């Protein structure tokens, strides 16, 4: 029983990460009808920015690179990552997607793949600066967070026998951040003027323009918001697994997309629920001893959803406007 509960917890934690990335996917898709393939890589960039900010602060404080970081440092690094990724998201939209908005959807989709590969491979090139290695394919270590003697990646109640339920500070951080971002996003989209404009753009692009909505600004805002959320996910991912590589965004990015489709792409709570569902499914696939097929299972679910209910759990089948 404890093991089953533990698996549920594991699934929840992993699913929360998917949900966090899926939020950005679904938002951009809702507004632009574009699968932003590069989203998973923005997530990865977030993890790197967070990691290097921490290291920079540690150096300034005269600490070693891999010394445990304080909560304040972690918060600062997350802020830096959000800013950097917001800027990156803006740049990607401005430079790569906007010129293609009037072109075919295929063109933007191919460009999105290009941007994704560009980020992945650019960061696989190692740089050396003042004797420090930056980026590159070798895993980069992320310092762990500690309050006093408690380290965030340890179980909160230390386990003496091997049957207890284990929850770490990082698990809580992941759940908390996902819930917070979900609520924040829901609030923005539902209850603010900008959110209303976003919804208007997603329903009808041209009509929204005629209503005096500054389309470019709304789309930029969507990208910045989505990328900042990805950064939060990326930094927390770094804290959790403490080892980051330029390819770390690929699989979570795809899974997040699947999560968004499960929930109904374009639907914000749907993305979160889809992420959790996917996380749980994977945990149970592993529980029954099929862990090597976790990724395959995710894609099978995608194909099943597309077969049975392409609009997802919460999505509505909206006919394309002719």
């Amino acid at each position, binding site marked *: 029983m404890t093991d089953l509960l*533990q698996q549920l917890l594991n699934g929840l934690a992993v699913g929360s990460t998917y949900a966090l990335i899926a939020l950005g996917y679904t938002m951009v898709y809702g507004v632009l009808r574009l699968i932003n393939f590069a989203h998973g890589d923005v997530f990865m960039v977030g993890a790197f920015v967070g990691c290097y900010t921490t290291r920079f602060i540690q150096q300034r404080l005269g600490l070693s690179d891999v010394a445990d970081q304080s909560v304040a440092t972690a918060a600062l690094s997350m802020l830096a990552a959000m800013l950097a990724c917001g800027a990156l998201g803006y740049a990607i939209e401005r430079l790569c997607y906007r010129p293609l908005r009037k072109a075919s959807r295929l063109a933007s989709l191919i460009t999105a793949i290009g941007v994704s590969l560009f980020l992945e491979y650019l960061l696989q090139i190692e740089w050396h600066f003042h004797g420090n290695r930056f980026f590159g394919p070798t895993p980069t270590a992320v310092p762990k967070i500690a309050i006093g003697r408690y380290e965030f990646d340890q179980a909160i109640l230390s386990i003496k026998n091997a049957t207890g339920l284990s929850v770490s500070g990082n698990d809580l951080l992941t759940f908390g951040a996902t819930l917070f971002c979900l609520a924040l996003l829901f609030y923005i989209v539902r209850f603010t003027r900008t959110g209303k404009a976003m919804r208007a753009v997603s329903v009808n692009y041209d009509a929204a323009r005629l209503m005096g909505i500054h389309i470019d600004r709304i789309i930029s805002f969507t990208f910045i918001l989505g990328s900042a959320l990805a950064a939060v996910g990326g930094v927390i991912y770094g804290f959790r697994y403490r080892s980051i590589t330029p390819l770390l965004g690929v699989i979570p990015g795809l899974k997040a997309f699947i999560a968004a489709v499960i929930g109904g792409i374009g639907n914000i709570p749907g993305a979160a629920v889809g992420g959790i569902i996917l996380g749980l499914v994977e945990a149970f696939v592993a529980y029954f001893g099929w*862990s090597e097929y976790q990724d395959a299972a995710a894609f099978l679910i995608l194909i099943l959803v597309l077969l049975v209910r392409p609009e997802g759990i919460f999505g509505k089948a909206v006919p394309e406007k002719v």
Partner: protein
Amino acid sequence: MTQRMTRRCLLAATAATLTFASLGSLSSCGGGDGGSTTQTGGGGGSGDTIKIGSLQSTTGDTSTFGQSSNKGILLAAEEQNAQGGILGKKIDIVQADDQSQASQVRQAVLKLIEQDHVCAILGEVASGRTAAAAPDCQRNKIPLLSPASTRNDITDLGDYIFRSCFTDAQQGKWIADFAAQNLHLTRAAIFTDSQNPYSEGLSKVIDKEFTAAGGAIVIHENYAGGNQDFQSQLTNIRAADPQLVFLPGYYTDIVKILPQARKLGLNVPFIGGDGWDSDVTLKQGGDAVNGCYYTNHYAPDDPNPRVQAFVKKFQQKYDGETPDAMAVLGYDAANILFAAIQRADSTDGRDIREALAKTTNFPGVTGNITIDANRNAKKPGVVLEIDNGKLKMVARVGESAASAPAH
């Protein structure tokens, strides 16, 4: 209409350029070396140098393997050349990079054989890429000596395929025996990277040998290398309550698996093979890897004078860097090959092959090495313990298989 005309012109111009460019480049490919190929036996001895190929993954995923291996090989060649080379000629190590991709190996091997005319090839480290290199070496009768491919059936790929390291069968037995006899543990779990043939092969041997030694495997779990989250599987392992976990994987995953295991309260020792060997294991594993063991080709803290002399030379050449296992294996492999060429007194691939096959009790840094009838090396290994963030040699294994290294 004018638009269409310009389009046509553009089309014509580009078509012509592209065609000429690609045709031209293809023929330039062929022009340099057309006609002078596939002579058997290699011609690496022409001129006043002996050309030896080094097929390595110096870029890509496992670039650290290839780079370390090359460092060892180059150090060996430098030493040999300082002593006057072999057969009165200087050694020229020709490097070829396969970008850590099996699909690029053939291109690299053919380049070494046909363009550079090497007389023998050292490499590859990864078993899959050694296998990819084997057919062309076999066909052209160029001996291929792998410094570090431990997979059992590599040397079955032809009588020109050799290795100078131990095999997974040997290593698996050492791991299992160490757990059963030195640690006296009986209930074990095996955690395998199911997509990694190295991990899969080693797991099978460990399973068999540990059961033979009186232990019991209580659970067998799999993971996919490169994944990030292993808690589901570790929870299953925890539920089976083993006394130790065999984890024959690569260090890139080890450093992620162990902290997650400790978080779940799985505080038993983990035991692995030479795939653990990297400074990353210590740096990123932190507290989580303490109390774990792995088998390896050598230990830098081994008091054996041969080891210490090598470490000192290596550090002198490479800015104080401590040589890892790949470096020392590359060094040994290169020296074994040099000795074989010396004994063969020829740079013909067939003669070198004969001489290589007769290698007996070669005094390598990693112990005394004998090449057996199946072109495998008989040699000892070591078991290391990670103790407070440092490596400590706790046992020397397999010495009965080869004669003990001189102290």
